[in-house]
């Protein structure tokens, strides 16, 4: 794809006059306009102003006051900042792998030809369409409340349950389960990846006497690694920015005892309830930096574990 897109215009260039070419560019930008306006006005503009604000004390209403690096220095002495970073990293390191494994396993199961497979695929995909919504977060809250459905079912088996979302040891767990439950989007991408694996390889493997498990680890996984790579990056970026479910379930407090104080939630509190928008902006830029570093690490490590069928030449 990349290849052809880079070559074609140069060939066209020779044939057509400059005037025509300019016209083409104008048309192209015209069609890009809606996106461009959105990008400049809603992404790039706010990003630049937040970078500026991160060096100021800004209470939302009065003019920002330049304080240099003070916000960044304060960050690392703030115990709630440290707590929120811990909570978020714990979440990312548990939720992302479990979600990807669940997605992969279900994708492998649903890759078979069987009756009603379309129905199952839709069903398993559904949570990831709904999962980010406020309604599901409220549902989750009611499920795991002290007199919620989960405990009622447990009581049926004579197990007395905890107040899952109101106990600091368990609250994060319920949000991890909620995130894992939304594996559908990665699953669909895995499914597409599985379909791309040539059948001949499986035939060859079975001719050589490979067991199902061997085939999975020696054929499926290596050939699926580009898709795993893609899903990993996407899920990492998504998970580290988790907000809605934590906000709703803890009613915006990040409690009990900051056990669900996700990074973005604390950022929101700082900005909008404590009136410290400069500090919040500094937090946002630290997040950008950390997330960027993590993503780069995955990219660099990819050459050791991601295998492209064509040798990765593209």
């Amino acid at each position, binding site marked *: 794809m990349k290849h052809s897109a880079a070559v074609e215009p140069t060939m066209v260039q020779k044939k057509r006059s400059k005037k025509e070419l300019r016209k083409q560019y104008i048309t192209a930008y015209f069609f890009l306009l809606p996106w461009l306006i959105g990008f400049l006005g809603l992404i790039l503009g706010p990003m630049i102003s937040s970078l500026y604000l991160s060096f100021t004390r800004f*209470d939302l*209403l009065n003019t920002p006051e330049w304080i240099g690096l003070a916000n960044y220095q304060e960050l690392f002495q703030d115990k709630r900042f440290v707590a929120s970073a811990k909570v978020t990293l714990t979440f990312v390191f548990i939720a992302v792998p479990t979600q990807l494994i669940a997605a992969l396993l279900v994708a492998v199961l649903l890759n078979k030809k069987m009756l009603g497979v379309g129905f199952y695929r839709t069903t398993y995909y559904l949570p990831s369409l709904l999962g980010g919504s406020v309604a599901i977060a409220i549902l989750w809250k009611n499920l795991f409340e002290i007199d919620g459905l989960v405990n009622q079912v447990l009581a049926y088996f004579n197990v007395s349950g905890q*107040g899952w979302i109101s106990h*600091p040891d368990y609250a994060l767990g319920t949000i991890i389960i909620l995130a894992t439950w939304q594996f559908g989007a990665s699953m669909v991408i895995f499914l597409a990846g599985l379909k791309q694996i040539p059948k001949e390889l499986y035939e060859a493997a079975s001719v050589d006497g490979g067991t199902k498990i061997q085939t999975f680890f020696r054929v499926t996984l290596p050939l699926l690694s580009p898709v795993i790579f893609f899903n990993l990056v996407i899920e990492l970026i998504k998970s580290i920015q988790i907000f809605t479910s934590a906000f709703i379930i803890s009613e*915006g407090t990040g409690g*009990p*005892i900051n056990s669900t104080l996700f990074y973005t939630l604390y950022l929101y509190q700082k900005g*909008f*309830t*404590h009136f410290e928008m400069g500090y919040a902006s500094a937090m946002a830029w630290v997040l950008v930096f950390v997330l960027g570093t993590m993503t780069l690490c995955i990219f660099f490590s990819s050459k050791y574990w991601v295998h492209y069928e064509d040798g990765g030449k593209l």
Partner: protein
Amino acid sequence: MKKFYLLFILTFMMTVVIACSSDSSNGEASSDDNTGNENTTEGSNEEGNEDAITLRVAWWGGQERHDRTLEVIEMYEEQNPNITIKAEYSGFDGYFDKLNTQLAAGNAPDIIQFGGNLNDFVYRDVILPLDDYVGNELDISLHSQSMLDSATFDGSLYGVTLGTTAWGILLNKTLFEEAGVQMPSKEWTWEDFKDITPELTENLDGTYGTADFNEDGFGVFLAQRDKFTYLDGEIGFEAQDVKDWFNLWKDLRDSGGAAIPEVQVSASQTPEQSLIVQRDVAIESIASNQLGAYSGATEDEFEIYPYPYNSETGKNGVSLRPSQYFAGYSETEHPEEVAKFLDFFVNNKEATEVLGNDRGAPVNSEVVKNLIDQASELDQQVYAYIDLVNETSDAPYIPNLPGYNENTQLFKETEELIYFEQETVDEASEAYYDELLQNIEKYRDEE
């Protein structure tokens, strides 16, 4: 063929554009639209009628308050056909987050309900001073002086007090009967309280004696010891007071009288979801004006009590305090209309009859007289309680700590650290006290 496609795409785009535009105009017409549409767009749309004015009014509350307030708004619109009022109402959770965002974006509602945190906003210069309208659009001649004082900062009046209230203890009479526990005398002490609550827990299935009285209770607790949280730039208590308060509650939990942590943590500020209405507890601390909302949300019978007395000082510590204010937004385009609406809301006979004492006993003396005459049994109870506090009050009114949001969160976090035994009462109390001093210092700098 190409032309056909072009035609098709153009037609499609037109349809989309038309569909979108008609959609948004529908949105603007709906009266409870919550997305902050500017008055200006409305005004220009209705150029035909020059005086057409839209005011946006924001408040938080339970269903009861929403119904009553909306009814008054309708009355006002009927009497002032050129005024359209857009109501923006919600529960308490998230109300101030949204308001802060609107203030930062410069499109806050024209009339905004505040609580004891009005001071935080006055210092941020977003509140309309009402001095120019007093005596003209806004009549405050019959308002109680102490309530006017509470909304006066640096000599200017910034809001009208919507009601007088006082902290009180709500007892679920029905649950007391079910538990076979006698209702205490109204001059009960903390010792009585410690005896009664474990008894309730023991005799009731799935209900605990009492909910934690939280930060509001701490203020009353201090007043009973002749201390206060923060007044005129001075902090009025020591770390030892914090320890004593948290130890009191630790003992209550240990004795089984107070709700277990998991239940307490899930407590809600909204009457309908509160622990006492949900029958998780039999006793809860509320503001007296909330009695109607709490009673209305359940079949159970509630009775309001004063705080348990401190048997050593003999003090009760409860004082009359403003419940909420309506204030104008400093950038409003129609300040006179704002003042007119505020006047209607607190002084008009019919309007105040509809509002009752949902936001507390009105501050206009004539209005109160009129209301007491026709009050229901439940309302009589509230007025009687306010009267009682007024007569027996042994404590001054103490406004909220500056930096309300941050400090309230700190208090809650400290409670939870103790609930789940992450820190001892002493450690947590001292950490709380230190951080509180720091926060106050920070806000003092800003002022």
